[in-house]
């Protein structure tokens, strides 16, 4: 036990002091942000200020409505959030699409709308005129509302960048709303009644517990958690691989084995590195909380509110995944002579981690499906898939417990198997071990 502690201590202290640790701790959150937030921002972001749109209203009725919709449409998300300042922006898994749009809208530049009347010019003339304004970068596009718009006419949208999804969608929905209101007014309904009728509803997601479902965070938050567990499992697995190969190649293993059994040696190494990982995540967690607190104090940035249990679950499932995958890495390390070889040999197992990560995309959408259930019971997927389920819908406790039991039992079984291979592998030099050889080692020891 004392010796195991000595190994843990060495592994921990030596690693926490390295530049690599410091850099990874600082860069980690930045990378996470880069992987999750930035694509969303980029998708929604429009460079170069507000979109300038000219509207030619041939109906002569709806311009004011369309212009109002375009200019005020983006206020709606903010309005939706106001009734729930204490809870997180509750966006259930099924709403990921909506979430995406919302992210786009929030960063979208507002519209500058200008009406151009035909007067006595022909439509073709005006269009030509507007084309040249587009060429001069005077405006970004124009919309033609045909005279029969209120019946079944199709408006035209011409823009320098007609493929811009968000702009197109916003314009489309603004016109739709304007047309709908106008039709209602034309049908004799009072303006106020129309407005009242147009108030959007605010869907309140209810979880299995019957409470308003909580802690779901946003799609990006769940995605981020899955990504974080995936990346750190991979990263620290690599650390274990490197550590084992160092001891093997420098022949330190010989002295280590002359002083202790291979089981406490391997455990000490795994525990030591896991503490490094937990330290790092602790720092990240604290930084996150500190940042949330700062953001809550009157900043425009809204971070998802994270229930404390999520941190606990994250730690537990990370450890489970870490011990499963790092044990595999340790064995692989004892079988090979270089990290490159190790990477190749570990590939099939790492692919399972990747598969678990990709499964989580499906699980975020339907966390109650039987696929989700089985994926979160399979120990090589569970660290990611079960965590994703917990964060999106809180599965029954027995499922969580079962998943943990299976996972940790698998880890222990793997460690037992690994320590038999480890000793022989570590003492063998010169070449990569083959699978039949390894099978023989297991029988031998």
């Amino acid at each position: 036990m004392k010796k195991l502690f000595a190994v843990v201590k060495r592994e921990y202290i030596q690693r926490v002091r390295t530049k690599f640790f410091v850099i990874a701790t600082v860069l980690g959150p930045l990378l996470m942000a880069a992987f999750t937030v930035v694509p969303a921002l980029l998708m929604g972001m429009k460079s170069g200020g507000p979109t300038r749109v000219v509207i030619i209203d041939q109906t002569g009725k709806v311009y004011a409505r369309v212009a109002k919709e375009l200019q005020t449409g983006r206020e709606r998300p903010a309005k939706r959030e106001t009734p729930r300042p204490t809870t997180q922006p509750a966006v259930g898994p099924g709403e990921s699409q909506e979430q995406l749009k919302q992210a786009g809208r929030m960063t979208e530049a507002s519209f500058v709308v200008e009406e151009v009347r035909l007067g006595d010019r022909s439509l073709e003339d005006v269009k030509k005129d507007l084309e040249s304004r587009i060429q001069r970068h005077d405006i970004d596009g124009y919309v033609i509302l045909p005279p029969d718009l209120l019946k079944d006419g199709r408006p035209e949208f011409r823009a320098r960048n007609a493929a811009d999804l968000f702009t197109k969608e916003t314009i489309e929905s603004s016109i739709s709303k304007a047309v709908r209101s106008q039709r209602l007014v034309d049908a004799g309904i009072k303006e106020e009644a129309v407005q009242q009728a147009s108030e959007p509803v605010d869907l309140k997601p209810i979880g299995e517990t019957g409470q308003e479902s909580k802690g779901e965070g946003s799609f990006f938050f769940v995605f981020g958690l899955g990504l974080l567990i995936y990346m750190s499992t991979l990263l620290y697995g690599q650390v274990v691989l490197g550590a084992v190969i160092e001891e093997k190649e420098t022949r330190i293993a010989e002295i280590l084995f002359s002083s202790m059994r291979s089981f406490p040696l391997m455990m000490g190494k795994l525990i030591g590195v896991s503490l490094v990982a937990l330290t790092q995540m602790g720092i990240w967690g604290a930084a996150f909380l500190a940042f949330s607190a700062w953001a809550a104090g009157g900043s425009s940035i809204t971070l998802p509110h994270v229930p404390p249990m999520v941190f606990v679950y994250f730690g537990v499932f990370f450890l489970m995944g870490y011990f499963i995958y790092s044990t595999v890495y340790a064995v692989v390390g004892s079988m090979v002579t270089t990290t490159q070889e190790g990477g190749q040999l570990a590939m099939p197992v790492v692919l399972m981690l990747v598969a678990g990560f990709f499964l989580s995309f499906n699980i975020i959408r339907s966390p109650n499906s039987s696929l989700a259930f089985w994926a979160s019971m399979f120990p090589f997927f569970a660290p990611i898939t079960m965590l994703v389920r917990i964060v999106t819908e809180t599965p029954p406790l027995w499922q969580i417990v079962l998943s943990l039991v299976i996972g940790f039992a698998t880890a222990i079984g793997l460690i037992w198997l690994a320590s038999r291979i480890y000793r022989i592998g570590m003492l063998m030099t010169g070449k990569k071990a083959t699978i039949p050889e390894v099978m023989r080692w297991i029988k031998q020891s």
Partner: protein
Amino acid sequence: MDESKPTLVLNHVRKSFGDFTAVSDLSLQVRPGRVFGLIGPNGAGKTTTIRMIVNITVPDSGTVELLGQRMTTALQDRIGYLPEERGLYKKMKVGEQLRFFAELKDVTGKEADARIDKWLAKLQLTDWKDKRTKELSKGMQQKVQFITAVIHDPDLLILDEPFSGLDPVNVDIMKDTILELRNANKTIILSTHQMEIAEKLCDDVCMINRSHKVLDGKLREIRRSFSRNAVALQFEGDDGLLNDPELVASMRHVGEDLEVLLGPGVSPQSLLKRLVDSGVVIRKFELVEPTLHDIFIEKVREAA
């Protein structure tokens, strides 16, 4: 010394890997206060034997007993081991490194620090305590490695090729240290393929070749028993009389010497007398003790 209980006993130890037999039926006894040479060419089975002694691998059959008990993990702490291939954590500081290996051998706290300082001073490494191991020269790293083997004051010290890579000054420091430990009644196993080193340091030797023990016993007795009735000569004058086949069985030049193997029943005295009588000027006349190298070659030939 012979009456003292052996520190280490190997009984009919066998170890094979697949079809390859690394050690077959090896028995030996190692006593305290002596340097025991485990001698043989590369691949003879020395390292496998040592690994069984330190409990890294377990023999297929036979037993290893240390201090009168069957070898166990707990007994590993009574052994100090300097492996042939050195292994140190390159990025760790020398002091931390020694501290870690001391803890692995159950030496902790102030006791460990005191011993580390003592040994660093003894091997002239004190200034290097806070340097990273990779900044040290190969020879210095070797001395650090040696300290990891002795830091816990083991009863049995196993040194596998301890002099390789050391300069002459450090070879002397190392030799003195080994002899000091021997005089402190420690048991030392010196494994080497360099026979000249074994010749100078060992009290007992065991020669192994291709997994088999060829010979073992006290070095002095072995050499005496292999005495081949040979003389090393240097002289000036007519060497005609050496051509008498009755007198000289064979001769060869070894450096400046002429090494003469005497014919059966011829004593060195009679050769000396004949030489003096023949009027040559003798500059050197010395009985040749066979070297371990010669003995080893002879035994291997016999076995073949």
